[in-house]
């Protein structure tokens, strides 16, 4: 990879003056360069246009509510009063539930695939997990409504209420009413959707950890688990964090599956079993029905908030992943 890049840069001598430029231009190299460059710039243009359109179209709402939009708890289309707090809360809570389930599961799975499984098995399982990542979100929504919601209503929910529900503090998270739809079910669906990302990226990061690290730990008398948990995982820490951020960004922005099981009730409640709402879900549900200009503008401002949340997370995730993969390369 690196070698071909070097060749590219030096295939044409850096500078041979105007005549050389004219010659290359005649050959079409500069033309091809500029044309492809324009297409690259189109990507920059689209991304900035997205920000621009969201910003301009949310003008009404931003002018009217200002920063109070973020802590306003009312969402009232009848009186044209909009606050984003319940949606931001719902988005964060469902994503947190998803991470609490998906991170241990995903990390453990990645450890198994990178450290224990023979390479062939590891590759085939990773292949299946990539397929899982390709399942469209509306399919998760259908399974959520018809399979998970009844399951939470009749089995998982009551079980949680009657066991964890009695504990101090944590118990407050699992209180009736339990309709089956709500933060918990949405988080559960999300966790299934983001696990493939955590496993897939973490596995690759773990595989870049040099073998000497493992051998050194084992030679000092560490068990296999100790060498993995105390040496290999810390080594790959940043990359694993990157995969988690990537997964979190996906969970925050996930729309359909959540919209189908969240219960569509913009309230801030402690119980995870209660129905709630998320930013993406309310946009999906109410956008086409938004009659007033201010209503539409408030929904678009929610889109802007969501955009920045995922934008920042994705940015961080990419930096972390690149940093570890490069770091791994230096040490090996």
């Amino acid at each position: 990879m690196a070698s071909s890049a070097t060749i590219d840069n030096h295939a044409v001598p850096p500078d041979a003056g105007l005549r050389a430029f004219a010659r290359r231009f005649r050959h079409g190299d500069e033309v091809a360069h500029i044309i492809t460059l324009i297409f690259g710039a189109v990507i920059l243009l689209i991304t900035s246009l997205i920000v621009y359109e969201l910003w301009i179209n949310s003008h009404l709402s931003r002018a009217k509510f200002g920063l109070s939009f973020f802590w306003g708890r009312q969402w009232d289309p009848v009186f044209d009063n909009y606050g984003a707090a319940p949606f931001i809360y719902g988005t964060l809570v469902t994503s947190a539930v998803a991470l609490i389930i998906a991170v241990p599961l995903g990390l453990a799975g990645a450890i198994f695939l990178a450290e224990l499984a023979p390479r062939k098995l590891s590759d085939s399982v990773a292949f299946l997990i990539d397929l899982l990542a390709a399942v469209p979100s509306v399919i998760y929504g259908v399974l959520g409504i018809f399979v998970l919601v009844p399951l939470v209503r009749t089995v998982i929910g009551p079980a949680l209420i009657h066991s964890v529900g009695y504990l101090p503090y944590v118990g407050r998270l699992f209180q009736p009413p339990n309709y089956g739809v709500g933060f918990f079910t949405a988080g559960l669906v999300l966790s299934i959707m983001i696990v493939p990302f955590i496993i897939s990226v973490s596995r690759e990061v773990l595989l870049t950890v040099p073998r000497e690290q493992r051998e050194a730990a084992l030679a000092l008398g560490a068990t296999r688990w100790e060498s993995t948990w105390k040496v290999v995982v810390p080594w790959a820490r940043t990359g694993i964090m990157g995969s988690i951020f990537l997964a979190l960004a996906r969970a925050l922005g996930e729309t359909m599956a959540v919209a189908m099981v969240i219960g569509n009730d913009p309230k801030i409640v402690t119980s995870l079993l209660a129905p709630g709402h998320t930013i993406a879900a309310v946009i999906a549900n109410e956008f086409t029905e938004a009659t007033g200009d201010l209503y539409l503008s408030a929904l678009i401002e929610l889109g802007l908030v969501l955009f920045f949340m995922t934008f920042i997370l994705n940015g961080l995730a990419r930096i972390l992943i690149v940093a570890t993969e490069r770091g791994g390369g230096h040490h090996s």
Partner: protein
Amino acid sequence: MSNLRLAWRKGLNIVMLSLTGVAAFLVVAVLFLILGFLIYNGAKSLNWAFFTQLPKPVGETGGGMGNAIVGSLKLLLLAAVMGLPVGLMAGVYLAEFGGKTFSFVIRYTTDLLNGVPSIVIGIFAFAVAVVPVKHFSTLAGGLALGFMVIPITVRSTEEFLRAVPGSLREGAMALGASKWRTIATVVLPAAGGGILTGMLLSLARVAGETAPLLFSAFSNTYWSPGWGQPTASLPVMIYRYALSPYDDWHRQAWAGGLVLLSLVLIANLGCRLILNRRGSFRSV
């Protein structure tokens, strides 16, 4: 004391390592559970009418999602026409021409664009393609999907171009070919198979997208002639039918889900098998 400690460490070793295996097994099991549920519930409602007929009004049983299937194909065609060329050319730029700083900026932006939530892409398509003409259209839906195709295509194109050995480029140039000729006649054909499969994968991914279509292509209970009218699409239809209170529509939603999932998984399976034979390919 030390014996006890050793036993504890060995025990912990076995327990934790087994748990990692259980975790991996659980995640793979989910895939098969999903497949199982869809086949069990969807296959019952699949028949020829499902593929050819229009949806029936509430209360009448039967009918199908013919218009949604055609709608999805039209949207994908538009997405391919609008998104793939941009992705391909930008990928060529990154792999063959790009300098340091500007390529980094484009690459980074591409990743960010890839991470933009699909519902936000929907709002964007609404703002640029629905508001100006004041009605939902197939074109707006295709545009929304086109935006989503671009970043995936860029990354796969760049990766396959970079996998082409430098000696091929040198060979062509040594024969006196200019750089763009080398790219067009040697490098691109060498990476062609991979690039095409990468494109197919990106289309398979957007084929299941629902959120960007909700307020661009919208929905339609009839056939949608031409490109200027709202159109039904498979994912949106599944969404609306699954949320409806009617048993017959639920049945159809399962069937639609099975059709959609089969298409997406078969495309993925085929592409990934081809790609795996050619070398590594990262999807995320």
